[in-house]
């Protein structure tokens, strides 16, 4: 912790250093390893260790303070109207000041209070009063009325330095480029510089030394109204740079600190340097607002010089920056002017050496989540209704997403109005954990798909679209749009006052949909499941082995980042506040959350990553997560350990250069968050109390590939994809180029970033038996230890896949088959119960037990047969130089593993409960007697399918139906003639269709049965001359061939109609209705009734003969007929017909008596004889 005194010491050291009084080398050594040179010791006395770690921070602040006065005047667009400075929000208060560091405890207000401003104060003591009147110094500038300056959103602006009260006399500073400056102005200017600047610097330093102990805080009046002008800006010129040596030393110091990772705000510093580089200041404004030129970086020339020199020295940075940014730098006229060698030589070489096509892009055209039967089918749901509900949820989710996609760009569209109802109803459509879990999974998958598709800011693309037009018509608007998208959220001034807005601001593009979906759904249950889903996703990918490939690695890094971001959102969003929290409330909230646990063990992940060499994979997502943290969280003790570990990693971790850059630039972004506790950054390595000791659990599983040293994983594309804030560098430069008349039209280049899709799939975690290490296991472990790592991976992979295949077979083949068998036996049981009218025992329990046993046995068999293929598989996959014995061992291990996995699965899943549901449902179905016939006939048809070879020459069933229908209609209504040949053809056609086609559905088959029967009957009635006994015989034979189970199914149909009102209908609903009222009505219309009735008798006899109709059925039909009144003539014909049947039946009796004595159906109880006699009576 720095005291005020040590701060002052450090400042003194800095001044001496820059002035050259202390050698840079000594400071470098001291900063590197703490060895203190005499000179330093003299200055710092006993504060050396304290100062050492805070020195870089002080340096950074010093730079910002030095340049603040100029930066404040920076205007982006010279042709743009400028704004009243004081009207812009308080954007200048974000940076740590020297004094913040001395505050003992983190305070929410630390950034806003304590503007001690001692350096400022000292500077104020010795103002330079150069009284050069502006009229003399500058040519007249265009005047304009009081105008506004568009508030700039830069986070780099230094501490709230309000200097140069308006009352002070103006001081000329800088030169104007246009309109063309007259030579004497330059002279005047340089004269002024020579007089003013060195003196002020020296004096300031001297004063600082003197006033170490005296601290008074002056109140500085805020800058008042500032009437500004439309302006031209000062062009930097090497000739006007003052303090060259000091600036060189300062630059070397900064460069050293950056290269040794001493400056924690890497991103920010470079951004700052670029801001200095592109600074544009109006001479008039400068004159008005900034009359003194007292500091090192108080003028444009010095700023640009310092920036250019320092940027040049940061070689390690530029090789990781994307080529389009580099190109902007190469085209920057100021850099060309100040560092021509670097630009023309090294940077150009670097630029041409960067290969942009390194990562092979996979064109992803599908942005929707594919249905995976493995995870999404019916087996993954507890019930049918759950499954059906989720089907709806899935479609509605997609609908909402599509809806958002097509509407979100319409400014007047409001997502809450448009979609909230739909979102809420879909999320809570079924309040069931299974549905929530599936929905969360869908949400996550869609999110990851989209994340991989996020497009970079790409000028090339913009040129064609609306943005391209904007670029030419209103570049400033485009700049502001870009800024909103690209610039770091916390660079916005609203961050401090509008935390609520801001956590939402972290999401851009399509991610906004997912953010708003969560907010609008407002479903705690969904949020909880989503958290779990994200957590498991993070866990899976963090420990993923599948990162060897560069594209895969990039996918994983990005997926992890997005998941972590949303996890952070879910976790921190409830803690967001739109207000600035007063200190007492802040501390109260802090106390409330003191024992709150993070949903994710960050320290654990960091440690593990550190040891396994996977920081490059893990740090980016941890940063994404932490960036969303609220101010209170950052002050929780539980949080600090994670932050300390990260700081330590920033300082010390050794990674391959690109990996290191990715890790450090991400971390520096985190450290710059406005809520980040700065005190931690000033801690010494020891004070961080970082525990990187190995705990033994980590040592066991060390098979994961180490990534941190890998040189080919990370490229500028990935870095920019992971750290989109880096684009702001390019945009600063582009903005400059854009507004610069000379370079406009150039400097807009782009590079397309490649986006690779990810398919996120949960790897099902196999059930693990608690590890009791046996000798065999140790042997196995040792065996693999001494083989190449790939051997173990291969064996495990093969075993895993084989086991998975077996499990799949069990699920899709064995279980359904056995369940079906069980259902059949259940049916038999049920039927037998029906007959005896006694329902006593529930068979489901015992059937379940039996089934379970069967499935387990069959599964074991299936596993055994699957294992047979292991040897050939492994031979193909293992290295060829393995000893045969080693291979054998591998085969046996893989076999065992497979067996174990299958058995584990069976133990867990194949239980009595698994079948209970199915069987109970089946029983319920049987009770309802529904679907019975359907399944029966469907299975008959399906069986046919496998045997039948489709004959396309046969008539299509629909055509045949139409034909029959038309024929029947014509015969009844129009008395159309049908020849015997027609009938025969029709028979063979029908038979062909039903026997030799695969496109006949059960319902159609049934319909044809009905129609053919109707057709034949109607012919018998209306055209008996076309029908002979032969014809009837042929048809009946056909029916009995085609519909063999008719008699049985008619019995079954009896069940179907059980529920019908009594008396409404005879119980037999068989198709073969010969003697019913309708048929008799038809017969009454016959023109040759004798022939017709003869045929009907024949038909009845044949139907009975072929078992399509039972004698009993005829009885029933006949009884129903006589319930109604009929003309006597018809009745007597009916009587004759019935008599014929009775006679025929009697003639059959003796034979059938011996063969089937129990056949109740065919017992002649004399009813029909009586009916026949009865109907024949004339006087009825």
């Amino acid at each position, binding site marked *: 912790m720095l005291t005020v005194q040590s701060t002052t010491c450090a400042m003194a050291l800095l001044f001496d250093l820059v002035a050259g009084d202390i050698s840079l080398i000594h400071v470098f050594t001291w900063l590197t390893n703490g060895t203190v040179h005499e000179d330093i010791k003299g200055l710092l006395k006993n504060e050396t260790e304290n100062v050492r770690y805070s020195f870089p921070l002080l340096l950074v602040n010093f730079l910002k303070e030095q340049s603040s006065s100029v930066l404040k005047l920076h205007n982006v667009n010279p042709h743009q109207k400028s704004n009243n400075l004081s009207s812009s929000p308080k954007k200048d208060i974000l940076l740590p000041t020297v004094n913040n560091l001395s505050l003992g405890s983190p305070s929410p207000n630390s950034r806003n209070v304590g503007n001690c401003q001692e350096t400022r104060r000292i500077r104020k003591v010795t103002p330079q009063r150069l009284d050069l009147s502006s009229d003399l110094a500058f040519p007249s500038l265009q005047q304009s009325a009081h105008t506004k300056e568009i508030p700039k959103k830069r986070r780099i602006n230094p501490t709230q330095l309000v200097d140069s009260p308006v009352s002070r006399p103006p001081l000329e500073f800088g030169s104007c480029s246009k309109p063309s400056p007259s030579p004497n102005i330059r002279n005047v200017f340089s004269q002024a510089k020579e007089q003013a600047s060195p003196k002020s610097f020296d004096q300031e330093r001297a004063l600082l030394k003197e006033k170490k102990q005296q601290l008074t805080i002056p109140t500085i009046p805020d800058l008042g109204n500032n009437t500004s002008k439309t302006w031209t800006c000062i062009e930097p010129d090497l000739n006007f740079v003052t303090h060259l040596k000091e600036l060189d030393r300062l630059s070397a110091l900064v460069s050293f600190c950056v290269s040794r990772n001493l400056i924690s705000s890497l991103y920010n510093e470079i951004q700052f340097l670029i801001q200095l580089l592109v600074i544009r200041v109006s001479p008039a404004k400068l004159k008005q607002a900034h009359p003194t030129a007292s500091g090192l970086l108080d003028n444009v020339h010095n700023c640009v010089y310092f920036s250019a020199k320092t940027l040049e020295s940061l070689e390690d940075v530029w090789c990781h920056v994307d080529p389009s940014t580099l190109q902007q730098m190469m085209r920057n006229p100021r850099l060309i002017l100040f560092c021509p060698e670097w630009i023309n030589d090294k940077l150009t070489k670097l630029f041409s050496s960067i290969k942009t096509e390194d990562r092979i892009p996979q064109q992803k*055209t*599908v942005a*929707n*989540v*594919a*249905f995976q039967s493995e995870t*999404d*089918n*019916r*087996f993954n749901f507890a019930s049918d209704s759950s*499954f059906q509900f*989720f*089907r709806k949820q*899935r*479609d509605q989710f*997609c*609908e909402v997403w*599509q809806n958002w*996609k097509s509407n979100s760009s319409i400014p007047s569209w409001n997502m809450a109005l448009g979609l909230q109802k739909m979102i809420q109803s879909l999320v809570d459509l079924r309040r069931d954990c299974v549905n929530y879990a599936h929905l969360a999974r869908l949400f996550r998958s869609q999110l990851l798909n989209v994340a991989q598709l996020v497009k970079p800011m790409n000028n090339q693309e913009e040129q064609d679209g609306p943005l391209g037009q904007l670029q030419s018509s209103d570049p400033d608007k485009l700049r502001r749009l870009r800024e909103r998208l690209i610039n770091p959220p916390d660079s916005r001034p609203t961050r401090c006052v509008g935390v609520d807005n801001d956590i939402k601001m972290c999401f851009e593009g399509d991610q906004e949909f997912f953010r708003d979906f969560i907010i609008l759904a407002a479903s705690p249950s969904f949020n909880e499941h989503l958290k779990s889903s994200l957590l498991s996703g993070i866990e899976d990918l963090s420990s993923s082995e599948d990162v060897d490939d560069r594209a895969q690695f990039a996918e994983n890094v990005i997926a992890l980042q997005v998941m972590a971001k949303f996890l952070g959102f879910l976790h921190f969003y409830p803690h967001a506040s739109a207000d600035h929290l007063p200190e007492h409330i802040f501390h109260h909230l802090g106390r409330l959350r003191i024992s709150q646990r993070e949903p994710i063990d960050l320290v654990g992940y960091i440690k593990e990553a550190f040891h396994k060499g996977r920081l490059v994979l893990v740090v980016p997502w941890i940063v994404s997560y932490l960036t969303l943290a609220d101010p209170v969280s950052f002050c929780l003790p539980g949080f600090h350990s994670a932050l300390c570990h990260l700081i330590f990693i920033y300082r010390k971790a050794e990674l391959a250069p690109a990996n290191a850059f990715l890790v450090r630039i991400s971390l520096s972004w985190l450290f710059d968050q406005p809520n980040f506790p700065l005190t931690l950054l000033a801690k010494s390595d020891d004070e961080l109390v970082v525990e990187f000791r190995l705990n033994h659990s980590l040592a066991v599983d060390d098979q994961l590939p180490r990534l941190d040293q890998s040189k080919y994983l990370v490229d500028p594309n990935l870095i920019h994809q992971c750290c989109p804030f880096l684009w702001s560098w390019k945009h600063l430069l582009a903005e400059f180029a854009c507004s610069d008349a000379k370079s406009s039209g150039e400097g807009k280049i782009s590079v397309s970033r490649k986006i690779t899709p990810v398919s996120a799939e949960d790897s099902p975690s196999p059930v693990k038996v608690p590890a009791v290490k046996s000798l065999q296991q140790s042997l196995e472990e040792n065996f693999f230890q001494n083989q190449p790592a790939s051997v173990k991976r291969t064996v495990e992979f093969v075993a895993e896949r084989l086991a998975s295949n077996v499990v799949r077979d069990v699920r*899709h083949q064995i279980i*359904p088959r056995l369940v079906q068998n069980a259902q059949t036996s259940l049916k038999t049981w049920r039927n037998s119960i029906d007959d005896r009218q006694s329902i006593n025992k529930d068979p489901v329990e015992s059937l379940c037990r039996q089934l379970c046993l069967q499935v387990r046995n069959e599964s074991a068999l299936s596993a055994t047969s699957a294992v047979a293929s292991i040897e050939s598989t492994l031979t193909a996959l293992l290295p060829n130089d393995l000893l045969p014995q080693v291979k054998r061992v591998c085969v046996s291990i893989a076999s065992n593993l497979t067996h174990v996995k299958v058995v584990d699965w069976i133990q867990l899943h194949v239980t009595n409960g698994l079948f209970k549901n199915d069987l109970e449902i089946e029983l319920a179905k049987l009770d309802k007697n529904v679907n019975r016939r359907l399944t029966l006939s469907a299975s008959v048809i399906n069986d046919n399918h496998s045997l039948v070879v*489709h004959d396309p020459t046969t008539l*299509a*069933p*629909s055509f045949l*139906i*139409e034909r029959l*229908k038309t024929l029947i*209609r014509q015969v*009844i*209504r129009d008395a159309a003639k049908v020849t015997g040949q027609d009938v025969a053809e029709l028979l063979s056609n029908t038979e062909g269709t039903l026997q030799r086609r*695969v*496109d*006949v*559905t059960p*319902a*159609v088959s*049934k319909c044809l049965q*009905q*129609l053919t029967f*109707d057709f034949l009957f109607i012919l018998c009635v209306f055209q008996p001359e076309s029908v002979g006994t032969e014809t009837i015989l042929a048809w009946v034979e056909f029916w009995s061939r085609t519909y063999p189970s008719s008699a049985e199914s008619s019995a079954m149909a009896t069940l*179907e*109609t059980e*529920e*019908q*009102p009594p008396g*409404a*209908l*005879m119980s037999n*609903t068989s*198709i073969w*209705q010969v003697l*019913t*009222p*309708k*048929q*008799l*009505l*038809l017969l009454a219309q016959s023109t040759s009734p004798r022939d017709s009735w003869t045929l009907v008798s024949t038909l009845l006899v044949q139907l009975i003969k072929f078992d399509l109709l039972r004698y009993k059925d005829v009885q029933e039909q006949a009884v129903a007929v006589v319930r*109604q009144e009929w003309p006597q003539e018809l009745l007597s014909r009916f009587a004759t017909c019935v008599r014929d049947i009775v006679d025929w039946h009697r003639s059959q009796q003796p034979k059938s008596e011996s063969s089937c004595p129990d056949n109740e159906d065919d017992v002649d109880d004399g009813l029909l004889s009586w009916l026949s006699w009865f109907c024949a009576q004339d006087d009825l």
Partner: protein
Amino acid sequence: MARVVSKTTYSSLLDSVYKLPYRNRVQTLQKLFPKLSVDTLKCVVAQECQRRMKGSHGRLTTSDAIEVLYNRYKNSISMSEEPGILLRLSDENGLTPALLARSIIERHYQKSDKSKPAKLLVSTLLKNTALIDDRDLAFETYLCLLEDDEYGPIAEATKQSIGYEYEIRLRMELEKCQVSFLHEEHLRVKGYDKTPDIKLEIPVAVDGQVINWIESKALFGDEEVHRGYLKDQLYSYWNRFGPGLVIYWFGYVEDLEKIHQNRTILIRDALPINMIFMGQHS
């Protein structure tokens, strides 16, 4: 014979359909639109009829309305009118014959509390009119079913059969092209929640567009029909399997694809012959 119809042709076709009397419209239309295939015309007429029924069925079958019709029917029977009573009533009233017959049966078999009989009973009676115990009603109903091409068990069976026949035809054509696919029944066994007729196990490209599934529709695709399918089926498939193809075997109105916006679902009237397969470089 063209099956892809331009918007203007379609609207003039619809105009004619509306103007013509219900019976035998197809024959008249064939003369008016000689270039269009008969199947297309049949389909358009059928769809118009179904739409008309959808709109008026409720109004025409209120219990009061049916009571009036039933009484007229009874009256005609008692007057021993020529058979075809219900057909004539149908012509007069606008309900299709089969729908009218169904309503009359429902009235005839109404329960003692005047509520409708079980649906199963009614459908069994319609399937086999010989089971209707009133001989006149049985015969009248049968005549109605023979006349109706849109409703009733025979018409339903025909429509169902056509749908299935084209599905099978599609499967066979795909097999001929050696495209590997799973069909609906496979998918159902595998527990899919939404099952297109064909899910391509290996995607193919049609006219530069990758497709992953095919849905067969043995009817004519106009905007209303297509929107209905998009909502209930096609978008669901797209959501799950990505871009796909729907075949309207009896044709469709041009430019329907524009409805989809960015969701690619191709529309054709037959299986495209220019499919490009994976690994085939041409």
